[in-house]
């Protein structure tokens, strides 16, 4: 337990001093601010793009448009940034050899995986919350009341999908070598999930729903019940991936 806390402290320090926290916070705050503003200014942007004689009419933007922008940004660019920031959390240590001193001091290897997952999850939670709070405030100010049905549930789905990606990163890094193999395999898996989404029969199971149906949940195009199976699958996969990365990492040559 003590070594778990010690290694978590080390992870926090690392994320602070290597500017990872700074990047995450700034990027997610930017998304939080930009999303409602982009929605609000969309008609203006179109107007300035419009050529003479062509009149583009778009309906007056609403709070729903603001959240649509927010979920589009965070589920695409946002998750990409999360992958980039945490992509090397395990593989960099393996390639550099910094874990050798820790392991020969008696640090258990599953603790390494667990502490890394804990700290990355906490940072992901905090940044997503900060980003969401900003968007919520901006939307309320720019569009009046920002209350939307299923809003918190939709955020929860995106959050859970983020945890799933972090578990993927740790799992794929636990047996590959090189700085980017874990990141690349996670990206490939993400691509496979996207491709599988084409098949209607897998649609109801696919974890990708957690990061793609967010806006549909707000507009009513998707129901909470549609997500219950993907949530179960994602939760199960996350635990499975974490468990297996601990097992695999235990026997890995360092």
């Amino acid at each position, binding site marked *: 337990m*003590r*070594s778990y*806390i*010690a*290694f978590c*402290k*080390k992870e926090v*320090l*690392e994320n602070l*001093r*290597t500017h990872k926290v700074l990047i995450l916070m700034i990027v997610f705050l930017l998304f939080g601010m930009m999303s409602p503003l982009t929605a609000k200014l969309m008609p203006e942007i179109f107007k300035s793009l419009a050529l003479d004689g062509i009149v583009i009419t778009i309906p007056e933007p609403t709070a729903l448009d603001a959240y649509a922008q927010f979920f589009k940004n965070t589920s695409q660019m946002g998750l990409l940034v999360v992958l980039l920031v945490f992509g090397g959390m395990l593989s960099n240590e393996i390639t*550099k*050899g*910094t874990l*050798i*001193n*820790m*392991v*020969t*001091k*008696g*640090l*258990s*290897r599953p603790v390494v995986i667990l502490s890394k997952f804990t700290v990355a999850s906490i940072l992901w939670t905090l940044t997503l919350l900060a980003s969401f709070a900003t968007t919520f405030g901006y939307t309320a100010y720019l569009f009046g009341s920002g209350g939307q049905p299923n809003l918190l549930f939709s955020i929860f789905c995106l959050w859970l999908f983020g945890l799933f990606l972090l578990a993927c990163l740790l799992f794929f890094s636990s047996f590959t070598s090189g700085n980017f193999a874990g990141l690349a395999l996670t990206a490939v898996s993400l691509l496979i999930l996207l491709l599988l989404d084409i098949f209607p029969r897998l649609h109801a199971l696919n974890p990708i729903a957690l990061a793609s149906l967010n806006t549909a949940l707000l507009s009513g195009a998707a129901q909470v019940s549609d997500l219950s199976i993907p949530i179960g699958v994602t939760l199960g996969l996350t635990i499975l991936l974490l468990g297996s990365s601990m097992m695999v990492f*235990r*026997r890995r*040559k*360092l």
Partner: protein
Amino acid sequence: MNVLSLRNVSKRFGSLNVIDGLSFDVEEGIVFGFVGKNGAGKTTTMKMILGLLACDSGTIRVCDEEVAFGETATNRHIGYLPDVPEFYGYMKAKEYLTLCGEITGLSNAQIRSRSDELLNLVGLSGVERKISTYSRGMKQRLGIAQALLNSPKLLICDEPTSALDPIGRSEILSILSAAKKYTTVLFSTHILSDVERICDRVGILNDGRLMLEGDLADIKSRHRENTVTLEFESTFDLQEVQRTFSELPFVSSVELQNRSLLVRMSDTIDGNHRLLEHLTRLKLPLLKYEVGEPTLESLFMEIIK
């Protein structure tokens, strides 16, 4: 008591037998020099002792407990200094030692006193820079401090001096000699003068096994060559002396080397007396009389031939 003992340990990488039936013991309280050329299998052996690599066969025991691959409880007895120790560059030395201390289970008070003591020992106290700005020698010294933190029974150093300049090397060697007071040291190197400076026992690894193992002083006396080097004044005709000496009954051969003669005898102690008698009787203009001492280097070269 043996702090470390290896029995018939073998390790194969592909078709290459890196370690082939290696057995040796390291007694408590000594500095053991583990010598071999680059690629002889020194690092492989050390990694197996630390459970970082699996052995194909044989057993390794540390403080009478068997080493298991992966997570091994025996590591609590060991302090390890890798050949190029890697640290978290964004930390300061004290922060790093605190992390190590917490992981290894020391109390906060112990961590404070141990790290002060050790930073002092390795000459890093008062250095407030981040580790990423350290020189190689400083990293190596921090590596020793880190390895000694949990007062290990066995300190394993993998080529601690190879990458350093002469000053850095000398510093590390004196720190290791000082560490001998607290712990047993297993120290691998291919620099033989380092071994001669600080080791009590030596093992020479070649082709995956120990070709020679024992007390350094013993090995030297056992391999003492019965030779004497004689140097004379420059005007002197050496060929004449060479002929006279080679006719003596206790001399097996005389070699002419530049301005000196290398005399090989069947027995050193007796031979020395009789040779000196001859030298005084003939009143030869002698400048230097040196009894041959085997260097580890010559032994090493002979062994790995």
